[in-house]
């Protein structure tokens, strides 16, 4: 008797589930992995806020379906990032994993997400390691940011265009630092006076800057993200070098996670970027204004990338009628996602990395007296990464 009731109940439940048409919206579940503790927590904060702003702009429902966002802190540790990805994919059963600031964490967790049999998508909100752009490219991986080398390539090209003959280049001694300078050198045609690698996390550059001044370069290119960038730029200015030897940097050393800490010392510095807070297009103006209204600060590229990641998911879901059931359909929809990127023209290359513009900006003050990246022109239009040839996807 007991068993009969149980079976009846099961049958009822099953029929209720089966009776739902395939197109009935079960919603989308997204896991956002980012860094929320330690010195890089500011980047993670912008990433989460940018994504949430996009959800709000989509009326709380990406693609018009119920949207659930699960946020997790990778603690700046690859093992913690991987464990988080496992939990989100296997226990929370998310459809899409996004976020991820650091490339080492991305490489640690990408297999966990991409090799899951349910067909989970991974949309990077920042990290763009060469492996995932080239030989390890994957149909379910998409980058809403750039390939790691691109921003540095842009500045190499600009400094070549500007006729700079002797450059002094510096970065922290870790994989992204070496990739950055390799990307820079790919497009810089002048002489590299010295290529200096410093300790990761170092914040005193007195010794290195004295050596730099003695070498008398024409310009300096640095890749120092976070607190390292704050310390470097201030010490560069304190030595009086800003006027003598112009300082060039990628956006990671000149964005809104850096400028408030640097202060006026940063004025005059040049930066290369795929997006800037002062980039003039309707989508960006709305994004920047609403971000400021909601969070009371100017967004950084981390916020912009995360916002775009959400908007691209939104557009793809709209194209599939809100369904993730057919993975091939959703993948195609993502690849051709029709959304207004805050960076202007945007399309995916065959390796699912963006083909996009890179701009030159200079640090100055806006009408409210705050430090911002002011547009100084386009360096690359429709720039693709160098690894796409090694990717087998067509």
């Amino acid at each position: 008797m007991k068993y009969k009731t149980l079976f009846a109940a099961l049958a009822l439940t099953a029929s209720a589930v089966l009776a739902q048409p395939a197109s009935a919206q079960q919603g989308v579940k997204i896991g956002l992995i980012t860094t929320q503790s330690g010195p890089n927590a500011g980047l993670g904060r912008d990433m989460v806020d940018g994504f949430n702003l996009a959800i709000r702009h989509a009326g709380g429902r990406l693609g018009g379906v119920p949207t659930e966002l699960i946020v997790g802190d990778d603690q700046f540790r690859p093992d913690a990032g991987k464990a988080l990805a496992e939990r989100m994919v296997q226990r929370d059963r998310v459809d899409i994993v996004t976020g991820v600031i650091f490339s080492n964490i991305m490489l640690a967790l990408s297999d966990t997400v991409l090799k899951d049999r349910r067909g989970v998508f991974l949309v990077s909100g920042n990290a763009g390691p060469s492996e995932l752009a080239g030989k390890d490219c994957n149909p379910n991986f998409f980058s809403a940011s750039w390939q790691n080398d691109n921003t540095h390539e842009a500045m190499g090209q600009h400094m070549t265009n500007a006729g700079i003959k002797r450059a002094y280049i510096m970065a922290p001694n870790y994989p992204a630092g070496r990739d950055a300078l390799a990307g820079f050198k790919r497009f810089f045609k002048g002489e590299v006076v010295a290529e200096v690698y410093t300790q990761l996390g170092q914040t005193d550059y007195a010794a290195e800057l004295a050596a730099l001044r003695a070498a008398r370069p024409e310009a300096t290119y640095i890749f120092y993200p976070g607190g390292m960038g704050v310390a470097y730029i201030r010490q560069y200015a304190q030595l009086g070098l800003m006027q003598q030897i112009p300082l060039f940097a990628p956006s990671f050393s000149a964005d809104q996670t850096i400028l408030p800490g640097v202060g006026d010392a940063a004025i005059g510095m040049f930066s290369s970027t795929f997006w800037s807070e002062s980039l003039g297009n309707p989508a960006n103006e709305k994004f920047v204004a609403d971000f400021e209204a909601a969070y009371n600060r100017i967004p950084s590229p981390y916020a912009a990338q995360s916002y775009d990641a959400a908007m691209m998911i939104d557009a793809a879901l709209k194209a599939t009628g809100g369904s993730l059931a057919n993975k091939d359909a959703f993948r195609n929809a993502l690849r051709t996602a029709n959304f207004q990127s805050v960076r202007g023209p945007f399309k995916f290359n065959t390796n699912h990395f963006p083909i996009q513009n890179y701009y030159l900006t200079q640090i100055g003050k806006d009408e409210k007296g705050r430090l911002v990246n002011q547009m100084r022109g386009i360096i690359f239009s429709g720039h693709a990464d160098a690894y796409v040839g090694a990717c087998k996807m067509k």
Partner: protein
Amino acid sequence: MSLLLFLEQTLNGLQLGVTLFLMAAGLTLVFGIMNMVNLAHGSLYMVGAFFAASFTQWTGSFFLALPLAILATFVVGVLVEAIALRTLYARDHLDQVLATFGLILFFNELTKIIWGPISIFMDVPPLLSGRVELIAGAPYPIYRLAVLAVGLAVALGLWWLIARTRLGMLIRAGASNREMVGALGVDISRLYMLVFGLGAALAALAGAMAGPIYVVEVGMGDAMLIKTFVVIVIGGIGSIRGAFVAAVIVGLVDTFGRIVPAQLGLPTAIAEMAIYILMAFVLFFKPTGLFAARA
């Protein structure tokens, strides 16, 4: 390397050295006298910098903010000692390491909650901004010279305190034989509290002066702490004189270690190892450090 560059790097090394000394002096006293491994010493450096940055914003004056930040961090130090550390003195070093590592996480998170996750701004005071051409052709920031001067003055002041005052006598006695000092009727718990507060105040001074040149951010004390431990191990635990000599040596070795290998075409990894090689070398010949307080 030209003579000019050599002189400039020597200044840089000395300046790093005195900053390390301010950190090491407090840590070595706490370690030597209280036999307490305090990993959270770097947190007090961070707290001092954040206090100084905020007080500078509120009062508009760095020189007003500096004593306020030192005082505030002294209070934080005394509270930490009374609330969290006092129960740990009798425990072994591993327990102390675990508990004070917990304090690092606690202070990092608390700082993030109060001041936010990105670095905050702290400017060089206008009076000390600008450069002076101490070495022809190499204008040097006046502020860094001021840090050097303050560090040397504090070293002198500490020497006076330790060598010439009653409190200093107790500290020295405590460093060489704690039990005996207690047996002679000295209020050990008050002495501990004072020593810990003094260490916190020195760390705050280091952090507050570092604010305008480095970066005021969560976790800023962690990297500093490792170098500080190298300094007190080389100098000999519990010895202020050892801390001073070792801090200057470590400052110079670290500074030149970052420049010389690159110029000779050697791998730059040597820069990261230089001070640890130095430490291994010193410990090989003098296992208790250069000036061990305990015989």
